[in-house]
């Protein structure tokens, strides 16, 4: 027993061992999927159903607040949501970003999804970065989209885009979908949902989710897609399993390693303490 304890202590004292094990638990499920079951939570289902119930003419604000660091967690969900939005006939999609890097990832997703015949300027627009921060930028966007964006991301006059003629403020927006690592959600919560009772669906990182969980319980956020797990649920609801589902397998394996490490670490610690 003492020898096993010493071996485990030596292994766990060196972070390289833990990191190597972690890499292995993440890589193996991608190469050979485990196919672990994924149950769909009501909050993801509500988000999916709300988007699915959109009718022709409805206007969506899609805030893509993904940055380079968060792509791993929000990329799959962002793609699944955007793909779903483009499948719904007749809806108008206004894409913005509160994170300065957001448009890069919006463009990356737009590049490879099927647009189902939707045309730029008529059915969707990319307006780009909302300056002014969460409070001022969010409030300005709610009161007059055209004043915040006199030009779209490509430099075209916003007023010359056909679909933007009738989309001017919060009054013209049916639902906000916010794919976010923490920048835009507060802007929409305090500048759209609070004063104007707009409908907000949020997809955010697992790290940010506990901060906004009370807002989902209170009804400020009507649909809540949390992290890669939420993305996997959304992919299953849309019947298009992708990166989210594959990543959930890898994550489950890595979580198992974390739990095992905690247990082994405690056993070694207490047995060493007793021996002393």
């Amino acid at each position, binding site marked *: 027993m003492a020898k096993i304890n010493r071996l485990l202590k030596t292994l766990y004292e060196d972070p390289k061992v833990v990191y190597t094990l972690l890499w292995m638990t993440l890589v193996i499920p991608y190469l050979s999927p485990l196919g672990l079951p994924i149950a769909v939570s009501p909050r993801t289902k509500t988000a999916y159903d709300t988007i699915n119930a959109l009718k022709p003419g409805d206007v969506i604000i899609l805030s893509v607040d993904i940055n380079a660091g968060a792509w791993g967690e929000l990329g799959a969900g962002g793609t699944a949501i955007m793909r779903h939005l483009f499948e719904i006939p007749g809806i108008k999609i206004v894409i913005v970003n509160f994170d300065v890097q957001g448009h890069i990832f919006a463009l990356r997703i737009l590049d490879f999804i099927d647009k189902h015949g939707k045309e730029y300027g008529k059915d969707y627009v990319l307006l780009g970065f909302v300056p002014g921060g969460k409070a001022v930028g969010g*409030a300005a966007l709610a009161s007059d989209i055209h004043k915040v964006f006199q030009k779209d991301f490509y430099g075209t006059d916003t007023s010359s885009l056909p679909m933007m003629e009738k989309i001017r403020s919060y009054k013209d927006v049916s639902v906000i979908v916010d794919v976010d690592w923490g920048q835009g959600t507060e802007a929409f919560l305090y*500048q759209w949902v609070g004063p104007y009772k707009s409908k907000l669906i949020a997809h955010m990182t697992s790290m940010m989710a506990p901060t906004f969980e009370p807002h989902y319980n209170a009804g400020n956020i009507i649909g809540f897609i949390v992290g890669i797990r939420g993305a996997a649920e959304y992919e299953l609801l849309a019947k298009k399993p992708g990166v989210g589902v594959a990543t959930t397998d890898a994550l489950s394996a890595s979580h198992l390693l974390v739990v095992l490490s905690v247990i082994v670490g405690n056993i070694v610690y207490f047995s060493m303490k007793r021996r002393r």
Partner: protein
Amino acid sequence: MDYGALLALFLTLAIFSYIYKETVIFRFAEHMFLGLATAHRMVAAYKYVVDNAWTPMMRGDFLIIGGFVFGILILLMLSKRTEWVSRWPLALMTGATVGLGVRALISVNFVRQISATFEPFALRLDALKALDVVGVLIGTVTTLAYFTFTYRHQGVLKVSSRIGRIVLMLGLGGYFGNVVMSRLTLLSGRVVEILKTLGLVPA
């Protein structure tokens, strides 16, 4: 050959080389990331000023000059002699941000959350949901009891504050668990990109 993906692969491995030790390759990748992020932000800010301030001003919208001048005044903070002038635009910005931030704070952060916590149980027909509401109610009240410092923690207050402490520990544990999950997801995001670049999983 996708050179962008290869560069991303190299930079990812350069960053992860820190696990071994801090090397020149790691520092190169770190500085490159910071430099690119800063440059990108500067270009975005410049584009916004040109699109929304300079171009309308050149077209004859002179009302925007006020905002333009206030923006330039912020730069005066770079000199100690003129630093005081920059406080005016900063005060305006702070005032606007606080004012706009506060207007919905009460309804979003307090009224709706309190009403959701004390929602009548009779309306919740589902037994599990009713249990959830009772749990949230007990958790809220006992946690508030833990932070009650006006009275000595004795009797009922002692019991409820102890329960509140356990609720807080559970909450913080859940928070930490989510942080771990989030970090692992970010790592898995890089892993999948590496595997894609190496052709081990479909792109």
